């Protein structure tokens, strides 16, 4: 009881790297973590700063109520609404994500994840052009050419280099960093850029032009020297890069939100995916998004297998429809369509555009979060939940779609997202008279 407990091979969900080699030491009182071995600075802070605080489990209209009453209130809001929207989901387990999609289905609502505000354009580009991709271990074992485009892994994904790419040792790259060429493409010289062999500083907003020029050069087409005036990158540099890409054994381009959420958006990503595809005529070449949230990739997967579409899905007609721009949450709110909102593990009232936030303030909102947020302060029903990974077991998907099991460190007095959502689902079915006779 008073012994410090150790958990080996725990999974960190603070960023999309989802490192699964963390050694956690739990304090003797079982209420906090005192050590997070192998974790980076961000991961350490994530684990060590996790304390069980004393928030009410459930609030309705700011008043503390029993959980069942809050579940009842939440279900009534969702059932009464004509266009209930459910949003968030990237920082919770797949088990909880499944329940959220089920609720959206049963209330004929809208379901969307934080993908729509980060790599949504990448998802659309993928549907248009496809992609050549690989699990991160394949990159560690084989990639002798590694390029990062529009991302800063050293600061945002601190162990990406060490575990999966630049500094990792693999089957065909026994010397790790020395066996690889690392290229960074960005609009400014970040800390990551200073670790690269080659740094390309691209003028802001010209990613598409640079990518298109690279495609042309890969295909042996003429590119005018004025490319430098527009993009800041000399033609010789591009040609040199193309020669390296064509002649490597296994190449990869990692791309981040610096590409997907800047001018050109899904056109940028499509150009990059097409470049990687074109390079397969010469050698093996892949492209991988670098995703932020711990289980945003799980959200993409769950929503896809249950509905057929990755995000921005609407059930108003009793079956799933997909239309980014129409059913993505920012748009659903900014247009004033949604007449109720349930948010799981996200804070749209803090980071959405002003028009969307104004609408949030005018409709009934339900939140599930381990801590108070700007959105929960606007909420009619607010649940405090246990934190996935730290307190809650379940499944998460790493940014390369590899599923991993969580190994929680200690129990939380709060319920899980999954439990609350399942309760709401059951109440919704009861209120709507939906029979779910299930035989195992």
């Amino acid at each position, binding site marked *: 009881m008073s012994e410090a407990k150790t958990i080996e091979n725990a999974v960190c969900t603070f960023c999309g790297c989802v490192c699964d080699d963390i050694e956690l030491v739990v304090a003797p009182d079982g209420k906090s973590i005192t050590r997070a071995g192998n974790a980076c600075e961000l991961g350490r802070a994530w684990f060590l700063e996790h304390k069980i605080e004393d928030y009410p489990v459930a609030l309705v209209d700011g008043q503390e109520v029993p959980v069942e009453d809050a579940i009842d209130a939440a279900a009534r809001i969702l059932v009464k609404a004509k266009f209930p929207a459910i949003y968030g989901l990237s920082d919770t387990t797949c088990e909880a994500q499944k329940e959220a999609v089920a609720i959206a*289905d049963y209330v004929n609502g809208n379901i969307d994840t934080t993908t729509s505000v980060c790599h949504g354009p990448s998802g659309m580009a993928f549907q248009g052009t496809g992609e050549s991709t690989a699990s991160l271990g394949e990159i560690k074992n084989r990639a002798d050419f590694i390029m990062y485009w529009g991302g800063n892994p050293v600061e945002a994904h601190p162990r990406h280099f060490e575990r999966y790419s630049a500094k990792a040792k693999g089957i065909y790259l026994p010397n790790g960093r020395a066996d690889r060429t690392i290229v960074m493409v960005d609009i400014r010289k970040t800390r990551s850029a200073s670790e690269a062999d080659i740094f390309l500083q691209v003028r802001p907003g010209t990613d598409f032009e640079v990518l298109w020029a690279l495609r042309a050069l890969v295909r042996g087409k003429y590119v005018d020297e004025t490319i430098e005036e527009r993009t800041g990158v000399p033609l010789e540099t591009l040609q040199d890069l193309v020669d390296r890409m064509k002649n490597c054994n296994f190449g990869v381009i990692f791309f981040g939100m610096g590409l997907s959420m800047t001018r050109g958006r899904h056109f940028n990503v499509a150009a990059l995916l097409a470049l990687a595809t074109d390079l397969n005529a010469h050698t*093996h070449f892949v492209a991988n998004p670098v995703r932020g949230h711990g289980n945003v990739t799980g959200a993409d997967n769950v929503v896809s297998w249950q509905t*057929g579409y990755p995000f921005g899905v609407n059930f108003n007609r*009793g079956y799933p429809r997909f239309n980014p721009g129409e059913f993505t949450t920012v748009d659903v709110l900014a247009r004033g369509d949604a007449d109720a909102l349930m948010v799981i593990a996200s804070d749209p009232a803090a980071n959405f555009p002003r028009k969307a936030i104004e609408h949030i303030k005018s409709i009934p909102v339900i939140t599930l979060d381990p801590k108070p947020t700007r959105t929960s302060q606007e909420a009619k029903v607010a649940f405090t939940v246990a934190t996935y990974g730290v307190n809650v077991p379940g499944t998460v998907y790493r940014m390369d779609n590899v599923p991993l099991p969580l190994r929680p460190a200690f129990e939380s007095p709060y319920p899980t997202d999954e439990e609350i959502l399942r309760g709401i689902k059951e109440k919704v079915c009861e209120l709507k008279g939906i029979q779910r006779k299930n035989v195992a």
Partner: protein
Amino acid sequence: MASELKIKNGKVYDPINGIDGEIRDICIRDGKIVDKVSDDAAELDASGMVVMPGGVDMHCHIAGHKVNLARKFQPEDHRHDVQPRVGGLRSGSGGTVPSTFATGYRYATLGYTTAMEAAIPPLGARHALEELHDTPVIDKGFYLLLANNVCLNQLLEQGRMAEFRDAVAWWLNNSKAYAIKLVNPGGDEPWKGRKNSNVHDLDQPISGFDLTPRKIIKALIDVSNDLGLPHPAHIHCNNLGHSGNYATTLETMKTADGRRVHITHIQFHSYGGELGKNPTSAAREIVDYINEHPNVSADVGQVMFGKATIMTADAPLTWLLRNMKKDKWINADTECESGCGIIPFSYQEHIYTHALQWAIGLELFLLAKDPWRMVLSTDHPNGGSFENYPKLIKLLMDKSFRDEEARKANPKAIANTSLLDIDREFTLQEIAIVTRAGPAKLLGLKNKGHLGVGADADVTIYDDMADKEAMFNAARYVLKGGQFFINNHEFCFDYEGSIYHVAPEYNREIETVLKPFFEDYYSVQFENYPVDDRYIAHGVTVPATT
């Protein structure tokens, strides 16, 4: 209280028990077939109806990373084919790669109650099981991709056969798989590591290894047999789709040397002609070999005209097709284990190769002497969706319909096959063999594919109609484990279905060999790799046969 049901007056087709269209009663208690029930049992009058065991699909692609990529890849394939929510059942999308719920409901609608996902890399086993859990009604399982496994190939090239066998058993146990799958054996290494090349001959050395495809094939056939797995090595041969590939297929079958082996979607491996030129039919050569060799079984992998989705662990093949079509393409490598390629596809009557593929598939069905060893599949969704099965059944049962369809297809292709000369029409009993009894037997599922005492009460009841496509399109009743899923054409209960898997014995010491490999070359911890029981809510462990 026992739940009992008697299905009366139906015309029963139960080939495993030698019942061929007799009017008989089928009795059910607590989810199983029994020889009689009490007088209080509920009754269902099946007069004028055909009663069969639930269908068993032994080769399809319905769950896991590859399928989910194909699903989110093609919104254009879902929009025209929605699956509305009915009561407490879930909604979904259709097309060639339906959402998980739609997949389960639609299989059941056709009268299928079991389906096996045919290609999962071990690293993706957890994902596959999560999707299979969300695929309702049907029982299911998956085959494990092991023919391009770097760790296993290293053991093999060093001749460490005892450890190889233990490692295979470790992998089957720790991913909760049902059978061993080989796809393009040895082809991943040149694809990933040698500028997208491939292997083309069973005796050609695999770059980077002192190994040939034949050695891998032989080793995995032997291990499947030695471990007593209920289903033998399930092989997608080298050279899929290439003209002249029937020679490779024959060589692969010969490598089994009398031991049990299953060759999958054999239609794609039955082409004559010269490499790089138009294919011809080699259905005759393939069927002759199988007719003479009872250790070999196959599923056809019939091509059906219309929309399909190519999705396979055979990445070089998909790249080849992509370069012909220049359409959108997915490649997805799994570290140390597998490749994967996906493209949208459409088979068209007027195209020589497509028409030839269509005709070769039918030749294989119709020329095979033993339907128990040449069973029905479209390699869903590679040759077309499983929703084409009713039409395929009609093609097999109705010569005039078949010839009419053949006349719509490329005449040069049809003339290059023997299709129009074949008069054979399948009987309902033969349909019951290729869609249920045969696959169940090949899978070693003793309680499936028949209606004898002790069998699972997975029962399908069709209206007896002259138009076999209409008949098999929508069963009037479907019982899963004795419960009505479809009652008089209406969905009722939802049903989760079970996961079938194997758990062969092995020496635990093998972990001391595997763990160092994982530490060096995988990106996940060895301890986080095994799939635990949480992912199989309703698991059935099928024992080894000795």
